[in-house]
């Protein structure tokens, strides 16, 4: 600041000293103007200090504005330019103070990070989310094995890529003929079968990929009904309706029937009708299979050994304690007595008392079961009566009556 003052004085001192022509005086005046213009101050004085965000090249000026000057169209432009100039000057002064470096003969500065928080364009990137397999592999500690990209093909006598470019071509070259296995229909197209299998594999992979995406995005994938495909067949729609209808607490028992509603097809198992003519071998096999299923006791070795050991133990202990090994149970309903029962007999320590007490307290199991059955029968009777509209006639009698009336 002082430097400018000095130069100013120096110029002023010199002007009156020189007595030149008017032409030169004008020139001097010009130079003078230029210099005074050049030496305008760099400082910015504001009542409220400017808030500067250097990273965004942003200046916020909270000072009170002169409304009169802004309203007046003559002065407004000049006033606004002054405001802008002060702001920019303050900003650039701050930037010029930053550490600078040179690149290709021009001076650069490193701007600090912006402080004004602005919204992002897109949300934060999500980290890699593991697929089900990757998760499983991580748990089990399975690491990726590196496989060779090319494999030696014995038939083609050259290296063939494991997958990708030229793999399909090599496959085509190799499998110009396919063996028909002995156990299949000889008229089946093996090539078609092969391509179908491949397509299924691809479809499965795609399905798993989509399922992984669904899992990652926490989307619940319905397992039955219309699963969001563009086209649903009438059969699928019917099934979806069935499931929707049956998804009540009473399993759709009280759901009203829609007029013209058809029962959903393909819900139960379909009976396979076998051919009555033709393959005799197949039929024989089928019948034998059924027979095999019917009676096949088989020997469970563990069980048999355990049983043998147990029996031997019982024998031995009986020998020691002295007593009888129970033989065959009487057809009249003799009670199965265990080893401990014998023990009780011998020691005579009121075991029978306990048994007696038990007997006296309640019904035996059989009796209880019979009672409950009776109860159930009674209930059934009452409901049946209601529905039939008959008064005191028993269920069995009623049925008999019906038969009789028919006859």
């Amino acid at each position, binding site marked *: 600041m002082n430097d400018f003052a000095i130069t100013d004085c120096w110029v002023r001192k010199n002007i009156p000293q020189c007595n030149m022509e008017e032409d030169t005086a004008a020139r001097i005046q010009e130079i003078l103007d230029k210099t005074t213009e050049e030496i305008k*101050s760099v400082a910015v004085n504001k009542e409220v200090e400017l808030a500067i965000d250097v990273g965004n090249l942003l200046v916020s000026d909270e000072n009170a*504005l002169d409304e009169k000057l802004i309203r007046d169209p003559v002065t407004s432009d000049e006033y606004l330019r002054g405001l802008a100039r002060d*702001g*920019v*000057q303050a900003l650039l002064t701050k930037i010029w103070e930053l550490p600078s470096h040179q690149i290709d003969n021009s001076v650069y500065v490193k701007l600090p990070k912006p402080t004004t928080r602005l919204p992002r364009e*897109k949300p934060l990137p999500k980290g890699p989310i593991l697929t089900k397999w990757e998760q499983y592999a991580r748990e089990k500690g399975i690491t990726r094995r590196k496989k060779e990209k090319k494999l030696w093909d014995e038939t083609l006598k050259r290296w063939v890529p494991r997958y990708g470019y030229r793999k399909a071509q090599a496959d085509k070259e190799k499998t110009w003929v396919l063996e028909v296995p002995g156990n299949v229909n000889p008229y089946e197209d093996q090539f078609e079968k092969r391509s179908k299998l491949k397509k299924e594999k691809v479809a499965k992979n795609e399905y798993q990929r989509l399922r992984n995406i669904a899992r990652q995005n926490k989307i619940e994938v319905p397992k039955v009904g219309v699963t969001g495909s563009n086209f649903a067949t009438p059969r699928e729609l019917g099934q979806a309706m069935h499931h929707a209808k049956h998804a009540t607490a009473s399993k759709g028992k009280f759901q009203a029937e829609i007029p013209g509603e058809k029962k959903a097809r393909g819900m139960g198992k379909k009976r396979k009708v076998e051919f009555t003519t033709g393959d005799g071998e197949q039929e024989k096999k089928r019948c034998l299979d059924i027979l095999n299923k019917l009676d096949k006791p088989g020997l469970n070795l563990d069980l048999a050994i355990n049983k043998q050991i147990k029996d031997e133990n019982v024998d031995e202990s009986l020998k020691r304690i002295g007593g009888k090994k129970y033989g065959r149970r009487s057809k009249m309903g003799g009670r199965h007595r265990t080893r401990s029962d014998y023990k009780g007999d011998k020691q005579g320590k009121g075991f029978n008392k306990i048994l007696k007490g038990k007997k006296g307290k309640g019904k035996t199991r059989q009796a209880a079961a019979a009672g409950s059955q009776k109860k159930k029968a009674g209930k059934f009777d009452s409901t049946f009566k209601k529905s039939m509209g008959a008064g005191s006639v028993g269920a069995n009698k009623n049925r008999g009556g019906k038969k009789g009336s028919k006859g």
Partner: protein
Amino acid sequence: MTVNVKQRVDKPKTGKGKRALEKREPKLIENTKQCLFLHGQKTSETVRQCVKDIHALKTPNGQLLTRKSPYLPFEDILPVERLLQKHDSSLFAVATHSKKRPDNLILGRMFDRHILDMVELGITNFKSLKDFKNAKVSSGTKPCMVFCGSDFEDVTEFQKLKNYLIDFFRGVEATDVRLQGFEHALLFTVIQGNVLIRSYRILLKKSGTKVPRVELEEIGPSMTLVLRRTRFASDDLMKRACKQPKQLKTKKVKNKSKDVFGTKFGRVHMTKQDISKLQTRKVKALRKTPIKKNTTKSVPNSGEPMETSQE
């Protein structure tokens, strides 16, 4: 940058397509926000010129689509959202003109392909870039922005408008800037509900010091904006949009300092020193005397009767 393409439902079929999609994925360090300039069904000369001029200032981060389309973002934002998604842009300016809202400019921005906030502004006192017959600034320069008026800090609507204007005009997030490259300055002044916009070219003059003296020359466009309808983001959404990635947050530097000469100092914290084990100079005088030895022995001596009892 790890881009999770795995999550896409429709898989790209070609490598080129894959790369194009990867470009649109969310990134840690985002690219500069792109802007679409649109024309509504009916536009006036003023608003058309205004949009054109702002587009000129925004190049190369803007695209001007001049076909007439019935865009009414305040009534139905979906067509604009779709268009912006298609162009992978997140800023938009729609020019409309009606009897009710003459010379209307709608400015908005998106977050995650959906509208974040938008404001409707009426344009008055418009002066175009063309009306100022002088040299302009080179395109793509980062402007210096000056906001004047206390309303930008005190009134919520203008606070949010300020935030939008910064986002709209700031351009590239630069780290290294050339000192002679400061060319463009924008002035936003708020006074009695009106926002005055002025655009200047910066002239750096000699000042006799290292810092140059700044002079400004108006280059246009200049206009006065009146706030009409607004639709600002909820605080919750704004908070979500402003979330900073963990990786970009700066860590506080601890225990390191520099003195005036640029020497680096580090402060090291240590555990308490065990002085009893300290190895000192061996002096005869400090050696344990035989009497002392006795005294130290006397302590186990007290345990003698116990030994005997054990026997």
